[in-house]
């Protein structure tokens, strides 16, 4: 990859993609001839682990890589834009490092995608015929967009140094790359949206309106949710990369750079994750408005305990983040002044976590509900959305406070109204917490429609208003502030880097589990209510089984990521364009 010209780089990208697509179609043709004909209801069985588990692992791996290559360019370009406007070399280096990561990851993404492209029509021919009949043109559009995206991506990467004096145009190319990424995301979300909340077809699955089959209830909210999650995930992987490089760094200079890169990536990841509950909520509202039963099944039926698992995972992520930020106070001159607040933040996090973990409908099956009732008499009150939303909002607010404390810990406000400013900060934090609590209590007294459509969004709104207000206030208050010393980048214990990696591993596991739940929400349907799954796998496995599969695919994903990181380091050793200091 080092010192490759733009033309050669582009050619390489196009050849790679064409070869992979060629392999797909060749395999489809050959396997179609060699394998026995599908069963009467349209299935073939994958040996040993079965078709479902195979497609589950491959699809999730593809999705993980796709999330990475669609998410990272967003902030790589943002960083490049900032580096261009501020003439900041360090931002340019981090943007380039991100670009190197996702450009190399494209090859693995395409290879795993090829496996999926072969597996689906071979193992589920009838289902894929149906999907082609309904959404066929979008599949061809996908291939075209994929070519354009790969070409733009390779051009963006290989022209980095050549266009260093023409940054504006280079940033614009990065912008185009992101537009192509969003189009890809919209196309794939349309497929999932149709499978889960189908529209535009008759009850027997005949196409009535292709546009309606694309524009389903789930399409846009799922796309928005995925877009935000991709940034969170992509930034998380970049933070892991930086953490890995920090751990293996041999010079203080490298440690300082990768400490800063890890911090920046992790904060982008966490910053965007603040939006996720809100956009996830919008997605939930759309699922409910498509079919209340599906929504209830997803939130409180068979999957009720997986929401407890989700709470464990998100709580673990937030704990990792807070732990990282609290340790980071050590590298800030003046940071020790804020140690005393850490215990209060910890208790708040813990209480919020406990409420978040409490399940509502503890009954796992309808049979259990018959025996023990739907809700727990005491804990059921803490398990409802009124309590959970409140706990989630307060936990996120505590995390934002940890971040705000870290940011200002090496500064001392010198404005004349500093005391008033501090009082205002306290008022915003306590005031917003009280409002969120009052709204939470009031939520118990209103109908679910009022709670879901009015009060919960207001709670999230109060949270966002609070962080925006704090952000603006801090910017004004600490303008021209006395700096007690620059952050001592690189002066971090190794364990802080494990926290960063812990965040990404947990988030990847969470993505795997949520993907399973979203897919499992269809229960025994390929296309909900339209095309039934009559294969031997048409059941939801135990939570234990789903957890094991999720762990296996997460380990495979990180093993592949490890190879990618290793490849980058090897290229750097060879020098040239691949070098981190290029």
């Amino acid at each position, binding site marked *: 990859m080092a010192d490759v010209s733009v033309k050669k780089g582009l050619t390489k990208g196009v050849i790679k993609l064409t070869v992979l697509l060629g392999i797909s179609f060749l395999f489809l043709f050959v396997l179609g001839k060699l394998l026995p004909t599908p069963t009467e209801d349209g299935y073939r069985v994958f040996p040993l682990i079965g078709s479902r588990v195979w497609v589950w692992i491959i699809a999730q791996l593809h999705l993980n890589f796709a999330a990475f290559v669609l998410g990272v360019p967003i902030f790589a370009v943002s960083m490049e834009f900032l580096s261009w406007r501020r003439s900041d070399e360090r931002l340019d280096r981090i943007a380039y490092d991100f670009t190197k990561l996702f450009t190399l990851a494209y090859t693995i993404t395409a290879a795993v995608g090829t496996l999926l492209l072969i597996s689906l029509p071979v193992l589920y021919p009838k289902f894929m015929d149906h999907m082609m009949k309904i959404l066929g043109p979008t599949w061809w559009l996908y291939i075209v967009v994929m070519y354009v995206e790969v070409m733009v991506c390779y051009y963006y990467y290989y022209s980095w140094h050549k266009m260093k004096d023409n940054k504006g145009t280079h940033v614009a190319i990065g912008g185009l790359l992101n537009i192509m990424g969003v189009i890809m995301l919209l196309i794939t979300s349309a497929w999932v949206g149709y499978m889960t909340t189908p529209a535009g077809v008759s009850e027997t699955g005949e196409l009535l309106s292709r546009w309606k089959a694309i524009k389903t209830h789930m399409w846009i909210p799922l796309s928005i949710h995925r877009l935000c999650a991709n940034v969170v995930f992509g930034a998380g992987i970049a933070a892991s990369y930086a953490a890995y490089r920090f751990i293996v760094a041999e010079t203080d200079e490298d440690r300082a750079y990768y400490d800063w890169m890890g911090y920046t990536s992790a904060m982008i990841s966490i910053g965007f994750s603040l939006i996720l509950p809100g956009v996830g909520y919008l997605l939930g509202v759309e699922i409910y408005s498509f079919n209340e039963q599906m929504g209830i099944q997803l939130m409180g039926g068979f999957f009720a305990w997986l929401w407890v*698992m989700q709470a464990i995972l998100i709580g673990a992520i937030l704990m990792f983040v807070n732990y990282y930020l609290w340790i980071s106070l050590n590298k800030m001159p003046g940071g020790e002044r804020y140690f005393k607040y850490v215990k209060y933040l910890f208790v708040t996090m813990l209480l919020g976590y406990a409420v978040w973990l409490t399940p509502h409908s503890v009954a796992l099956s309808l049979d259990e*509900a018959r025996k023990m009732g*739907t809700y727990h008499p005491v804990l059921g009150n803490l398990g409802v959305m009124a309590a959970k939303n409140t706990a989630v909002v307060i936990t996120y607010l505590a995390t934002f406070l940890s971040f705000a404390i870290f940011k200002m810990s090496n500064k001392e406000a010198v404005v004349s109204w500093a005391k008033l400013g501090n009082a205002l900060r306290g008022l915003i934090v306590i005031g917003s917490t009280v409002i969120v609590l009052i709204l939470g209590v009031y939520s118990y007294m209103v109908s679910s429609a009022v709670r879901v459509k009015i009060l919960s969004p207001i709670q999230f709104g109060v949270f966002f208003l609070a962080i925006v207000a704090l952000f603006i206030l801090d910017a004004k208050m600490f303008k021209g502030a006395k700096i007690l010393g620059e952050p001592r980048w690189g002066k971090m214990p190794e364990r802080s880097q494990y926290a960063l990696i812990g965040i990404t591993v947990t988030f990847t*596991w969470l993505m795997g589990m949520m993907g399973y739940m979203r897919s499992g929400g269809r229960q025994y349907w390929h296309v909900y209510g339209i095309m039934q799954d009559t294969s031997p796998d048409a059941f939801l496995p135990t939570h234990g089984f789903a957890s094991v599969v999720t762990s296996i695919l997460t380990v495979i994903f990180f093993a592949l990521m490890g190879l990618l990181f290793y490849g980058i380091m090897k290229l750097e050793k060879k020098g040239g364009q691949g070098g981190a200091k290029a």
Partner: protein
Amino acid sequence: MKGGAIKLFVLVVGINIFFAYIGLYFLPQSQSLPPKTIKIEKGIAQDELIAAGETILFGKGQCMVCHPMKPESGMRAPAIATIGADMVKAAKERNIPIENYVFEGLVNPAEYIQKGFENMMPPVHKAPTSLTEGELIAVSAYLQSKGANITINYPDSVPILQDEIKKETKKGGNG
């Protein structure tokens, strides 16, 4: 460098084993199987019809996703324990035969929403629930058994059920 990579490998695998362990040993283990269609034979005895209705209610019908057995605060849909008596009262208020009222509640539920509840029940003769005529009649008989005289049977009640399905179809459904 090698030491760092090994530590990271152990960390990644360790976290994944930990989450798999929680999934395996801290969460309840049960599968969710696709429902089976219950065949209702002509001339089925009333107690058998009611028993079949109960099985469908807790199984294929997925009614318990929303309907609690006993009244609870904040319940999404009417409680089953007294639903037979409640339906008789509502049918009298609307001045329609009880059989029509019960079937309407299943196949054309948006037609009448009890006070205090929202319009969220799907017509259960359609996908994804797809109850058959026999299953609908069994569920109806079971619902009547909760505090009312049982007047619905199979196959005598089929024409009334079909009338209600037709009304739903005319309203805009596809039947």
